[in-house]
């Protein structure tokens, strides 16, 4: 790939778009919030398989019209006859509850029902899990910041962290807009996105640093341009292979991994974009030049 693309020309426009999307994401996160799953909200999740495939979702819904359950949410999950049910009640307050519910439902819809998965999380544990998830993400960001700060200059570190926060907020923002469920595996996905986006950013930063040392008279913007172009084929190829693997999980990996792989696909796309259009411009905004690098006894 020898074609030179003038990326820096689009830096400003891209940053405005980024800011806008970021703002929209924040507004959504703030006003609409995230659709937390049982892991973070507490309650009960059931994955069931109904033997009689003619049973419609509304039949199942009306069979679950039990005031005791609280807010009930039913949706089709994968194959026909497979459903995911969520309700507010913590099924573990009474040990026989699940067995009773199973009998009630199967009697009401007049078909055998198989409870394939039962997850109940108490209110205390769910708030702990949420806190742990947030701590993990913040800690991961902090650790990345620290690593880049050691390996590069603080301007690089700042650029990388702005890109990462950009990725995390927009990914979560999209989850909020689409009302997709956020559970433990989404936290895992977000952390992996952080790692992946960082990985991308580091490759470009490494090259920027190298080029800054090589050419002393060229402006930072142009250095960024050259570096992004030089690493572009790698960026594209790696994103492609990763996306190949992720789409394979998304399409074939079963219902449980859908949310996870969707978050990852979003993250890879946003992360790749941000390495080029968010992390790199930050360096020129901070006027990183050869002098910045040579000031210390770096490399």
């Amino acid at each position, binding site marked *: 790939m020898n074609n030179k693309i003038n990326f820096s020309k689009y830096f400003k426009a891209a940053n405005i778009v980024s800011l806008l999307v970021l703002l929209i994401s924040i507004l959504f996160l703030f006003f609409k919030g995230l659709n937390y799953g049982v892991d973070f909200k507490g309650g009960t999740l059931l994955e069931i398989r109904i033997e009689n495939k003619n049973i419609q979702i509304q039949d199942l819904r009306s069979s679950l019209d039990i005031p005791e359950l609280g807010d009930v949410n039913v949706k089709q999950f994968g194959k026909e006859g497979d459903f995911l049910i969520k309700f507010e009640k913590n099924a573990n307050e009474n040990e026989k509850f699940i067995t009773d519910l199973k009998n009630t439902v199967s009697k009401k819809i007049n078909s055998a029902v198989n409870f394939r*998965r039962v997850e109940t999380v108490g209110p205390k544990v769910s708030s702990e899990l949420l806190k742990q998830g947030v701590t993990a993400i913040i800690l991961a960001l902090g650790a990345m910041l620290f690593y880049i700060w050691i390996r590069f200059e603080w301007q690089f570190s700042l650029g990388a962290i702005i890109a990462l926060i950009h990725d995390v907020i927009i990914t979560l923002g999209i989850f909020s807009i689409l009302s997709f469920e956020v559970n433990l595996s989404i936290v895992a996905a977000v952390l992996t996105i952080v790692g992946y986006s960082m990985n991308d950013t580091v490759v470009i930063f490494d090259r920027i640093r190298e080029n800054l040392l090589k050419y002393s008279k060229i402006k930072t913007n142009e250095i960024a341009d050259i570096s992004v172009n030089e690493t572009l084929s790698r960026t594209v190829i790696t994103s492609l292979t990763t996306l190949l693997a992720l789409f394979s999980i998304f399409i074939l990996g079963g219902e449980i991994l859908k949310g996870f792989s969707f978050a990852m696909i979003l993250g890879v796309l946003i992360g790749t974009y941000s390495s080029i259009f968010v992390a790199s411009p930050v360096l020129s905004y901070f006027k990183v030049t050869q002098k910045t690098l040579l000031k210390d006894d770096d490399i």
Partner: protein
Amino acid sequence: MLSFTKFKVFSIYLILFFSVFFASLNLKNNNLIDKKVNLGLDLQGGSYILLEIDTKPLVSQKLQTKVIPIKKLLNKNKINFKNFTISSNNISLTIKAEKQKKFKNFFFQQQENTVNNFIPEYNKFELDLEFIKDKAFIKFSNFGLLSLNNAALKQSIEIIRRRIDDVGTKEPTILQRGDKRILVELPGIDNPERIKELLGKTAQLTFRLVSKDDGFGSEKLILSENNEELIVNKRVVISGDNLIDAQPQFDSQSNQPIVLFTLDRIGARKFGKITTENVGRRLAIVLDNSVISAPQIREAITGGTGTISGGFSFQESTDLALLLRSGALPAPINIVEERTVGPDLGKDSIDAGVFSLIVGFILVIIFMFIKYKIFGLVSNISLISNLFMMIGILTMLEATLTLPGIAGIILTVGMAVDSNVLIYERIKEELKTEKSIIHAFDTGYNKAKITVIDANVTTLIAAVILFIFGSGPVKGFAVTLGIGIVTTLFSAYFIARHLTSVIVLNDKHGKYFKL
């Protein structure tokens, strides 16, 4: 970077050989080395149950036992007191100011203290004493609470283990989590309801007389058989502590399932005495505040054995016997988190996971071959080696593979080629300026090294944090992601580099150089 000593080459392929060997251990049952990748509960089916002990009732119960010793201590030392009251977490009493110092001295006496135990572990007393004007407040100190909590937790784990072992599930895991929680993992179980019932019961068994008048020393309890309300004495005749055995049986006359229990010597004596003195009265058998049955005492029972009948099904009598045998939990236990996956869903998940792994793998391999031709082949060989090494290491560590863990492997496959891509793209650039092909490869590998390491360390950081904070299946993801990074570095910098060097050194004419 392209020269390899013979020893190095030998080591690389030895490591690879061992990885393949370990990975192959998963294929079938072998008696050679018993190591395998464990399947997580989400893949093989089973229950994950997190229990939390509630020590509040235990604290007030323990405080209750302090009442008599405290009064004794006060009387023995001629300290006058008034308004002795006990609440759920403290005891308060009024003592004149001039006597307070004296009381304090006795209260915190290290030797022969019958009231306030000294905990040598923490170098602290179990009870705290505080004076506000003429009022004295006694409550458990933080260390007292801690040692009470720890003892209760330890005992609970022991009893839970006994209960689970008695049911006969295979390979249960019972672990302490934090200072109040117990984690129970039951692989392969398809109906956790029965176990949950057994775990959740405190199983505090008491034998108490039924009385006629509803007075201070009695309470109203419900007979579970027919919802009859009974007035039962608070005074306990004998408790489950005196039981040495309990077995389910069938009653010889009615053929109903019953539980036969055997008492220890002290219990047998007490039981004999009470039954002799109270022939004709009813004796309530109380389990966790509900009366199982309240039979009339027809004659004195002195043999130290008895039966409990309460219209049980056989399963119920088996479970009751099991609970009585394993003993009562020191404090109530609540299930705070449960995740159960049925075996058929687990199998579906494995099938889907493995299928998507194979498809993702093939797609990446085809892509790399098209893009880099012979070097794509090199990269693919290193990718396959990478996969074997990952599975080999997982086997060696006997790690647990979960569904997100499989996703971690697929993701590694996608990301592993990154190292090779970085290197090849670098070499391509070098080839533009460098005349010597060998030299170009050498510098390419060298220059890309820092970037490759930087890039992988960042992902490793994410994996480590995920491992520390993640729970259950997510931890499995962190494990495969972390191992994947290490094997990726190895396969890119040793296996792929060696293969590349073989090609480059044997291809002086640049025949294959279509990077």
